[in-house]
């Protein structure tokens, strides 16, 4: 497939990188000289300088012979116009990143119906949703659903005192009908074997039926108190959306914002939440607002450094759970080192959404992790290399594992003896290096 990407900031660059690794031909258009240089050095793609909303520039980028346009600049209007121009020149599918909810409102399908944009990506909405979900299951930091919501993969951070810590996996008593499929240790993903010893601060991924989630989490997590209150640093788009969402589900919210105009705007939109105008880093201020008693501290300002430091600070002062928004890939490994529990990156969320869109039909769902690992839901087609064979017989690559099988509405947590049948849907956890091999196994 030939893909034109407009804008190679964090989101555009990451998308280009991912699509090019998937084997697609990528042409990138970027206005900023420095970004053009960076992208042309780092990407296996043709990078052009110019305004991606211009029909002429798009024509030069070969838009007529392309199948997909992804507009991911930081300006909504440019993205929308680029999609319009591309559609007019015959591109089959267009994806636009849109920041402002003025253009992206599910109740008002303006973008899709009127502008003909096939996929609108709002990283802010996705990030807010992601954070909200991670606060909803007590004890877990992340939950992703598969097979129409019947299978969940939960991510739990192991703490001292958990029955799973400092023991090999085979000795840990996980509840029946659940399986540990992945461990992320210091930013590195691996698929655990029976003799893998779990450690404190490991992020472990457990597959189970959706109705068993609480029980499964309870078996390994030390702290399963529900989140009743949260502090949000930064009342930008993510912070405000999150605060509104949390307000709706009855979590008491404090929003901290440095900019007076933004703070006022947030206060005018929120009904119950308390908006505080402060930088949010001073110890006195944070303690006065009881950061030590807060269940979750979420740092989602526009600046990664601020987010990381604030989250670390909050953790030191006693916040139970810390979440930081990280837009630049370079900072992701730091989060773990600084003791931040959860990172949310718009870059990954956008790439994941685009990947789902591009692979629509081939895979049912895909989620990207910061470590490069993926959780994929795949169908088992007739005649592929795994159909009709037991899992033990299939030569699965190191670093990939089948976590669950959905068969005729039933969920099966498989063992080596279980046989995959054509028509099954399977949830696979795989580290980055094994992704291609896994896809080949399930291809016809």
């Amino acid at each position, binding site marked *: 497939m030939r893909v034109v990407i407009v804008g190679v900031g964090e989101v555009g660059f990451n998308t280009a990188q991912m699509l090019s690794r998937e084997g697609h031909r990528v042409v990138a258009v970027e206005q900023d000289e420095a970004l053009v240089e960076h992208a042309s050095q780092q990407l296996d793609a043709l990078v052009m300088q110019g305004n991606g909303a211009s029909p002429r520039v798009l024509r030069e980028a070969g838009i007529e012979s392309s199948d997909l346009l992804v507009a991911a600049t930081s300006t909504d209007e440019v993205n929308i116009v680029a999609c319009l121009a591309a559609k007019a020149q015959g591109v089959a599918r267009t994806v636009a990143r849109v920041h402002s909810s003025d253009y992206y409102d599910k109740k008002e399908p303006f973008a899709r119906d009127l502008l003909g944009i096939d996929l609108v990506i709002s990283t802010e909405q996705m990030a807010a949703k992601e954070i909200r979900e991670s606060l909803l299951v007590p004890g877990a930091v992340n939950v992703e659903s598969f097979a129409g919501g019947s299978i969940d993969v939960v991510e739990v951070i192991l703490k001292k005192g958990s029955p799973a810590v400092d023991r090999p996996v085979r000795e840990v008593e996980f509840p029946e009908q659940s399986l540990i499929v992945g461990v992320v240790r210091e930013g590195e993903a691996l698929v655990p074997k029976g003799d893998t010893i779990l450690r404190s601060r490991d992020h472990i991924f457990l597959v189970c039926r959706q109705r068993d989630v609480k029980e499964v989490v309870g078996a390994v997590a030390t702290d399963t108190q529900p989140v009743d209150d949260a502090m949000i640093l930064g009342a930008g788009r993510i912070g405000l959306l999150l605060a509104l969402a949390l307000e709706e589900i009855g979590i008491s919210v404090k929003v901290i*914002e440095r900019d*007076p105009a933004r*703070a*006022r705007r*947030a*206060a*005018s939109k929120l009904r119950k939440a*308390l*908006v*505080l*105008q*402060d930088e949010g880093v001073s110890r006195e*201020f944070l303690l*006065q*607002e009881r950061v030590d008693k807060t269940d979750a501290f979420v740092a989602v300002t526009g600046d990664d450094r601020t987010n990381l430091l604030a989250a670390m600070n909050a953790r030191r002062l006693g916040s139970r759970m810390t979440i930081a928004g990280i837009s630049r890939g370079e900072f992701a490994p730091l989060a773990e080192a600084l003791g931040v529990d959860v990172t949310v990156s718009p870059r990954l969320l956008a790439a994941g959404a685009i990947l789902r869109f591009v692979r629509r039909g081939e895979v049912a769902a895909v989620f990207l992790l910061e470590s490069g690992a993926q959780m994929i839901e795949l169908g088992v087609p007739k005649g592929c290399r795994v159909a009709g064979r037991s899992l033990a017989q299939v030569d699965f690559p190191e670093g990939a594992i089948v976590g669950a099988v959905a068969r005729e509405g039933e969920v099966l947590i498989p063992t080596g003896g279980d046989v995959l049948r054509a028509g099954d849907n399977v949830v696979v956890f795989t580290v980055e290096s094994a992704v291609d091999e896994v896809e080949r196994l399930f291809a016809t």
Partner: protein
Amino acid sequence: MQPRVVANAVGVVVGAGGAAMLLPMLFSLLTGDGQVLAFAVPALAALLAGGLLFFPARSRRGSRGSTYVSGRDVYLIVVLGWLGVAAFGSAPFVISGLMGPTDAFFESMAGFTTTGASTVGRPEGVAPSLLLWRSISQWAGGIGIVLLFVAVAPLVGFGATQLFSAEAADPVPERLTARIRDTAKILAVVYLGLTLGGVVALSLAGMNLFDAVNHALTTVSTGGFSTRADSIAAFDSATIELFVAAGMILSGANFALYFQAARGRLGRALGNAELIVYLSLVLFGTLVTTAVLYADGSPMGQSLLDGFFQSASLSTGTGFVTADWKSWGSLSQGVLLLLMAIGACAGSTGGGMKVVRVMLLARHAWQEVFRMLHPQAVTLLKFGDRVIPERLRLAFLGFFFIYIAALAVGTLIMALHGLPLGEAFGSVFSCLNITGVALGPVGDASFFAELPASAKFLLTFFMLLGRLELFTVLVLLTPEFWRS
């Protein structure tokens, strides 16, 4: 300042006041109560004066675009307009020989400001046409001469927006229509509708047409002038009392809500925060006074009726009376005085500080307490889902201070006239809240009649101050205003 524009506008207002006097003149002619001349002379004089101010000084059409009308002009027009109309409106009382010029001006100002304070002890002995004029003056004052302004503003040659905001009693106005003239028309229709409904209802309840018209006019304007010395109590009818009470409550609601309701947004109108608090306050007053009356041995039905009527009457600043509320004991008295001070909804004809201001002041005060614990909290002043600009918050605080200060200073000056402190305070309180009654003898015709002339003029000043919501009148008293 633009003397020509000011003269033009005041001319129109005074002329319109003269034209309004033709109504009671016609009534006098038909009924033959002998007051034709008492109206004809001032009516002609007002029309002449208005004409003289309007036509010769009229700005040429060609120069309309270049006329800049500042806030100063507007404030001056409003205050001079009220004073002019009240002055001409007092003439019929003088010419008919009913009272002297001072009392007449007091009566006229109490009419146009819808205060309802009066020096007339027995209205039954006064010529019907004069009573009708009193009621008409309240009715005209209730909707505000502003409507007239808005209707004729283009004649004078400037936009009416400033005028409207200088006069309309809505600190947090909601523009109903794109053009302010259309808004004014809507308000006028609501006002007319309420009035006509009042006439019909009161007639059906058993009043004769003359009483029904008069009381409809003074109910809708929440003025409180009556054709009887005993006010509504004279009719001795529970139905009439209920109708009048309902009329007062309807007139104390923001008229913009009627427009919303008529537009099909009834739910939104009923959900208006100010309306809910306003009705709750009336209910609260009713409950307290009823309980006190009932505990004192009055039958339940009568207690409820009296408590409800007085709560509605004083809450809206009308001042109608059906029972001797001044002897209801200190708890009831206190509650009713509090209702008077809080007043009715903004954008109504009622008096007091206005419910919305009190609500926002209370919220502001609470926020100050809250900020003791959270000094960095961003505490917006919200009304419904609208955010009140910080500038307005300060305006509310200033308003509240001036309100208290006006009460204090006024009380002291009245005390200077030798009144007992309670009466001194009561008289200023009743006029500033444009209610016309307070505790003790205050509110009785004999009380006002016996005041020295200077005290009467002072009270007319407080009536105007209250009607124009403090700022518009006070700005005229600053040296800065007159500096060019």
